[in-house]
């Protein structure tokens, strides 16, 4: 008894108590509301089940259906539209952010204007664009002002060749500002002295961007790209609100929603969710590797890549040696 008491009174005990005390609540919340439902979902993906009624274990059948269903495969292809949109969006956001972080007249106003769409609720944006694209409404009228013939204009949402681009544009319009603001924030943190030094060395603006700004904000660029790719794979609001996912615009999430709620195939929908998770993990991994390759020179300063690698190897080897030593020590202590 007194041993326990003295443990809790000791510095070590107090520290353990505080650590446990502070982390137990968030940990429980995390486990109960994030990981437990997630594990349940993985379990569901092996069942043939509806919300109510009996469940039947079917093994990997849902995953097989997943690859055989034309609807689902088609919806994944649609993500490519959104990914292309995301690449363009990030490039333009980066471009605007670079310009706006230099001295620009009314820069604040432009930042505000470009950021503004992000503040609007996604559903509201859906309705805005529904009317924007309606035959003879906003877009058609504006285009007819600048000389387009109303008759020759395409049906923005009806024509299956362009309706996905129309939808991609609406999400581009929304998220451009957010990307840009994140970039501006990162660029602000770059030491201004670097620009001066670069200018003295005769670097032009593009070179400054390439060799100073881009390497300094690569974390934010990576983050934005990960978010955009994840967002492309899970595009939902625009196709759901504007076209209800019909007419060849059903993205993965819209199809998943239909399968889970209209068809009530909870098992298949769970399998889709797990599959999407795997796809996102793979995309993130590929993108990480790609960036490692692109920015391989960023932190090397003068030393060559080879030298850097050699040094890293050496460091690793050292670390290993130290660890091994510690292990041996511990073992020795245990023996005593």
């Amino acid at each position, binding site marked *: 008894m007194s041993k326990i008491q003295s443990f809790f009174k000791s510095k070590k005990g107090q520290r353990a108590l505080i650590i446990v005390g502070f982390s137990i609540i968030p940990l429980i919340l995390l486990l109960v509301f994030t990981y437990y439902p997630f594990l349940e979902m993985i379990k569901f993906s092996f069942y043939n089940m*509806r919300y*109510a*009624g009996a469940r039947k274990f079917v093994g990997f059948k849902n995953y097989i259906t997943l690859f055989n269903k034309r609807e689902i495969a088609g919806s994944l292809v649609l993500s490519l539209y959104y990914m292309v949109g995301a690449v363009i969006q990030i490039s333009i956001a980066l471009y605007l952010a670079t310009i706006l972080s230099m001295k620009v007249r009314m820069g604040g106003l432009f930042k505000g204007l470009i950021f503004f769409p992000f503040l609007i609720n996604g559903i509201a944006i859906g309705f805005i664009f*529904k*009317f924007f*694209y*309606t*035959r003879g*409404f906003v877009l058609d009228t504006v285009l007819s002002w600048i000389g387009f013939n109303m008759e020759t204009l395409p*049906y923005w*949402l*009806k024509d*299956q060749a362009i*309706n996905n681009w129309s939808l991609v544009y609406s999400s581009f319009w929304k998220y451009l500002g957010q990307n840009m603001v994140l970039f501006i924030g990162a660029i602000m943190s770059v030491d201004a002295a670097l620009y001066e030094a670069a200018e003295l060395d005769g670097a032009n603006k593009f070179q400054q961007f390439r060799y100073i700004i881009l390497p300094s904000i690569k974390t934010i660029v990576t983050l934005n790209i990960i978010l955009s790719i994840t967002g492309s794979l899970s595009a939902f609001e625009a196709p759901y609100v504007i*076209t*209800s*996912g*019909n*007419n*060849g615009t059903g993205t993965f999430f819209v199809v998943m929603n*239909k*399968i889970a709620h*209209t*068809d*009530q*195939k909870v098992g298949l929908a769970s399998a889709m969710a797990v599959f999407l998770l795997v796809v996102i993990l793979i995309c993130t991994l590929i993108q990480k590797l790609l960036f490692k390759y692109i920015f391989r020179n960023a932190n090397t300063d003068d030393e060559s890549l080879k030298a850097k690698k050699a040094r890293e190897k050496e460091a690793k080897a050292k670390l290993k040696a130290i660890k091994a030593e510690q292990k041996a020590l511990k073992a020795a202590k245990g023996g005593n």
Partner: protein
Amino acid sequence: MKFKKVMALSMAAVMAASLAACGSSDTTDTQTTGAETAETTEATEATETTEDSASADGSLQYKDVVLGETGTDITTTIKVLSHRTDMLTDDYNGTSWADYVAAFNEQYPGITVEIEGITDYANDALLRLQGEDWGDIMMIPAVTKADLATYFMSYGTEEDVSALVNYTTNWTYNGEVYGIPTTANAQGIVYNKRVFEEAGVTELPKTPEEFIAALQAVKDYDSSIVPLYTNYAANWTLGAWDAYISGGATGLSSWTNDSLIHGSNPFADPGDGTGAYNVYKILYDAVAAGLTEDDFSTTDWESSKTMINNGEIATMVLGSWAVPQMQGAGENADDIGYMPFPITVDGKQYAAAGPDYNFGINVNSDDTNKLASLIFVKWMTEESGFSYNEGGLPIAADDTNVPDIYQAFTDAGVTYVVDDPAIEGEEDLMNELNSESSLNINNGGNDKVAAIIEDASTQSRTFDEIMEEWNATWTEAQEIVGVTVNE
């Protein structure tokens, strides 16, 4: 230090208060009418009278209630959950809940009726049902039939109740009836009478060909009028097409629960202009012939009501519930008509009819409230005129008062067909087949109808190809679920 402690405490208090505020509901509004107090002595008396009127086995029955005689001395308060929030507002232009309750209290002054309106009824009602003290009467939401008895009181046997009430099959399980319909609708087509007249369509079309010809006549008369508005963009409106394929297109009350479930290739062309095939074919042909709106992808539900009222739209395929909305959307209420679906089976037209929401009585209420609820439900059915006022078909079996909007149905000698209840032991088959086939017949299967419009517009598939695919997925679903298929 002390200050910090006080701060922390008050912060905690504020946070707790804000959490509590989150819990309180603000979407519901309650209305109380009639006598407010129920004294304990009276309540006990009431319980005694309940026992008298209960039938031999101790359960209350719909048939045993005689309005004006049974339970006139009851004093209690019953609570009703309703989806009709509009009927709680003062500016409702029909008979409001307050009017009904007032009329009810003339006969039963002791029974206080509280009506609670729920905006998102279909979802919220299911949640409320899980907590047991939701009230005494609710509109039965989408529960599984097998669970009916755990939530709701039986009104009596199927035989007894269906002798007094129409359309009871929806909530009948194991021979017991758990729901009395509030009102019932028949399936037809909303149309603008004036436009039809001006376009020279004097006789209402009776076959798909005549209907397409009528649409063409409208287009020829004035190309700015949309002959058939699909309401494609609203999406949920497309599911309405499923309601016509059963009794209305075949004249068979057994179609949904037998011919569809057990039939081989139920979407094949029967060759005589009837059946599911020809219902959807009307849509395909109309779109292919350019008889629908120019850009279906940007249709707007709210403005379509005004457009049909003003004569800019000739027809819309929707249930009769839509008629009052179309009439109220402009100044030309008299122009809006409702006509039978243009399919004739052996020289006769049919219309599928079915109940709207049903009254269900809480099985966990005490006997006094159960009896009071039973009285209220019977009164709503037999004396309130509710169904007639709401433009529905009569619910009480001896009621022959059909609203004006069904005039065209009466003129055409339309027979109303009510779907038979599911074959015993097969109550869940339809759900399973819908789920496996993804067609979701009468269950929010809007996408398949949307696909018909898309394919007709782009001509990417012929109608026969679409129906073949449906037949194939249906057959596959029948195999997976293990349904016996009649050849």
